[in-house]
């Protein structure tokens, strides 16, 4: 039995549990910081393990490791690492110095890694739940604050509902296909006698459950409230790694076991993509709170990523992976900047609080400007490349309606992105923000440099995404 396939996951789980022990034994103020540093170390080591591990299918067909899952895992680990670093100062400042925080993030990471390696509906569900439960707790981590508690509860109730839908879909698929393994489902699907409408119904439920996790319309309702209420580092975390995991999982599921039914789920994904892009660009226009605005922005981004999936080709999947990669770095950087918005010791979240930032803090303003232009898809920033490869796939498949709606909503979306730049550069200066902690500068700089200079050497990333996408289309 090739148990070693899961060494990164095993290591990360053990590390998380060991840290729990250490956290109980250690006393004092320093334990949060120590746990965070250990978490970063664990994430880095796991990344190395992922890179050096072998590929294959193990655990009796429950668990698959291939270029596709590794691409996603590295991306998830990067997002988790940045998330931990971002929380350092925020939690310090908001009196959330509890060592469980980074540990929960690590456990969520284990769940996500299981998700992207899932080769069976069982693994899929277990990974998803491990991730979700950790994030429910994280969202309500500022338990003395009403907004955070509300966010956690809201996310939990709706998330539980989505899990129920997903589970129902899983049971239907199992009932009709007689197996949970992805390969088995694919075989069942290929056989016209066995492929029954029940499978399709199950598929729809599973897609609904996963669409909830990537907050695609019409399963997006929780996003703005939870984004706004959760502690900002948790929002940053929620907005990146779980989205990658759920998106990657959705892609693997639809192109793998349900690949035969392209015609059926394609319509579904096209509709969801269009609705997400429209809502993401229109609803964000009226937002005054930058965290809510980012929530709508992420809804829109998921819509674009889904275009790649809707194309249903290797090029489309490549587009999704590149899109998610650029999305993670843009979002991590933007949230680092949002956490840095602190005036007189208090965190501020209004778009208007950014007024005149171009004068009071040119570096921060420039970083935000890069992220905003990038999210709007303006070249040469990385966001443009994400869209470029996504739309390539749509155009190749002749999905013109989808592509045209996509580019036009991106223009509408550009309006609110450049409005933020307008607030920063054209408006009269508001009082300056407090000095930035180094950790946030580091994350913002890392995200900013990647976003700004991705265009110089895109080839390795594109090649890696291409290799990963080929796995799904042998």
């Amino acid at each position, binding site marked *: 039995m090739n148990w070693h396939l899961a060494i990164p996951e095993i290591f990360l789980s053990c590390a998380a549990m060991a840290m729990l022990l250490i956290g109980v034994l250690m006393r004092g103020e320093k334990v949060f910081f120590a746990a965070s540093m250990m978490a970063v170390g664990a994430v880095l080591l796991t990344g190395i393990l992922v890179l050096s591990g072998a590929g294959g299918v193990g655990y009796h067909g429950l668990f698959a490791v291939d270029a596709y899952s590794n691409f996603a895992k590295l991306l998830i680990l990067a997002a988790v690492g940045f998330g931990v670093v971002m929380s350092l100062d925020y939690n310090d400042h908001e009196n959330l110095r509890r060592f469980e925080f980074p540990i929960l993030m690590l456990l969520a990471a284990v769940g996500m890694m299981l998700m992207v390696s899932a080769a069976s509906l069982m693994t899929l569900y277990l990974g998803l739940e491990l991730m979700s439960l950790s994030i429910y707790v994280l969202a309500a981590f500022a338990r003395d604050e009403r907004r955070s508690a509300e966010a956690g509860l809201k996310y939990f109730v709706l998330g539980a509902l989505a899990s129920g839908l997903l589970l129902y879909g899983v049971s239907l698929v199992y009932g009709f296909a007689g197996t949970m393994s992805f390969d088995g489902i694919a075989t069942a699907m290929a056989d016209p006698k066995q492929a029954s409408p029940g499978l399709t119904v199950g598929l729809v439920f599973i897609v609904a459950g996963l669409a909830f996790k990537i907050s695609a319309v019409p399963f997006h309702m929780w996003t703005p409230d939870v984004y706004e209420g959760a502690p900002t580092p948790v929002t940053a975390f929620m907005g990146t790694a779980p989205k990658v995991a759920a998106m990657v999982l959705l892609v693997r599921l639809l192109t793998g076991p349900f690949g035969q039914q392209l015609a059926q789920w394609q319509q579904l994904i096209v509709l969801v993509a269009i609705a997400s892009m429209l809502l993401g660009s229109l609803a964000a226009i009226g937002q005054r709170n930058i965290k809510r605005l980012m929530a709508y922005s992420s809804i829109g981004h998921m819509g674009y990523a889904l275009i790649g999936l809707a194309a249903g080709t290797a090029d489309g999947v490549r587009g999704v992976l590149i899109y998610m990669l650029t999305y993670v770095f843009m979002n991590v950087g933007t949230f680092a900047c949002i956490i840095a918005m602190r005036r007189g010791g208090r965190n501020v979240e209004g778009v208007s609080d950014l007024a005149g930032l171009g004068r009071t803090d040119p570096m921060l303003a420039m970083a935000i400007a890069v992220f905003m232009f990038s999210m709007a898809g*303006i*070249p*040469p920033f990385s966001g443009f490349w994400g869209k*470029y490869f996504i739309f390539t796939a749509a*155009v190749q498949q002749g999905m*013109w309606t989808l*592509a045209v709606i996509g*580019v036009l909503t991106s223009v509408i979306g*550009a*309006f609110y992105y450049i409005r933020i730049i307008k607030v920063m550069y054209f408006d009269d200066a508001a009082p300056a923000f407090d000095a930035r902690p180094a950790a946030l500068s580091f994350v913002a700089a890392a995200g900013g440099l990647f976003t700004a200079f991705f265009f110089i050497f895109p080839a390795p990333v594109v090649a890696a995404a291409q290799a990963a996408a080929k796995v799904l289309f042998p």
Partner: protein
Amino acid sequence: MNALNAAGFPLLSLLTFLPLVGGVAIMMIRGTEEAVAANARWAALWTSLIVFALSLVLWFRFDTASAGFQFVEEAAWLPEWGISYKMGVDGISVLFVLLATALTPICILASWESIGTRVREFMFAFLVLETMMVGMFAALDFVVFYMFFEGVLIPMYLIIGVWGGPRRVYAAIKFFLYTLAGSVLMLLALLAMWYAAGSTDIQVLMAHKFAPTMQTWLFLAFFASFAVKVPMWPVHTWLPDAHVEAPTAGSVILAGVLLKMGAYGFLRFSVPMLPDATAYFAPMVFTLSVVAVIYTSLVALAQTDMKKLIAYSSVAHMGVVTIGIFTVNEQGLSGALFQMLAHGVVSGALFLCVGVVYDRIHSREITRYGGLAERMPKYALVFMLFSMASVGLPGTAGFVGEFLVLVGAFKVNFWLALLGSLGMVLGAAYMLYLYRRVIFGRITRDDLRSILDLSPREVAVFAPLVLLTLWMGIYPSSFTVFWDATVHGMVEKHLAALASTTKLAGVLAP
């Protein structure tokens, strides 16, 4: 000598990225605010002058006998996907590179005193803008072209929005969204062409024959982008706003170079790559252009704001350019190119003229002025020269282009030429009317009695433009020689393409 790269070193990349390097260096300047401003101005001026001097290599070393691309450089970028970093110029683009490098130092000099706040950032934005402009004209790969084409929006948005007039925010956002909306459709066309031809190399795309129905859609997508940029009626409405609110240097670059990007796009992509669609859609373009020429000229007559008047006149002049391009004969194309260059110099200079009085009185209202000839004889002379050039007086730059375009238009259709020439008549009306109200008459306002004539710095700004305007008017051959071969090749290729294919109109007819 290497036939491909006559300079022997990556000249075009250097021209493209040197301003950016200078801009980054400027951002590093530290010290008191005044010292930073002064150093930033000088550093920007020297950077742009060095770039201009370097670009003169193009003028002297460009082989005018060749119709192909020269100074070509290529580097792998995404080689497996047919995308490479490729630069090169032919007869169509070479002079626009020079136009961009020549106008930039002039603009920097013109904003010496009128930009008082955040000088360092302004100079940085301006040099980034130069990078984008030069890169766009020199790009020989569609993706590279698109990056520069869109990238222009970023510095221009900031220049209008930060240093502009009272309604700058509205104008900046309108400018951004209008042009972006057009360009994203072009992006889809780009992707479709990439998929069809397997490469984004412009030379490969030019050689590729696209199916006639596909050409129609591609043409419309390109048209959405370039027509906004030109701008053509009825999508020109962003231009007056952007011009009025932009600082003087921004207006000059906008009129001088950015408007040429749309027409250049037609010349580089639509006409050579989509010959059938070009022939099919030419009547539509002619109609829109004629409407633009007549309608915006009439609108210009009614303006009370000097900058707005010149902005509308720009739309009219660019209408002449689009007529010339879509005649696709040697006179028309040559005239369009000449008109683009001439308009770049002349309308840029006219905006500078407005900037001169605006710096002194802080008003652009025509009625606010009058009788400036008494106090500002040098200014009156310069303004007159450029007004006449804008009208198209023989001997000035404006004449040659319009004349050639009308000759080209005559070959296509008598009415097209007739209606197109109405623009010249109306142009004379609004420019002379403007000139009379601003320069002649009596000084009635007190602050005009003490107004000062052109300072030595301003003379230095105008001198090269005056020389260029006269040179282009008196001896146009030194400019037309650059593109004669290219235009000739383009027309032949266009006719051959039309002859070889079933007429698109026939296919589409019911």
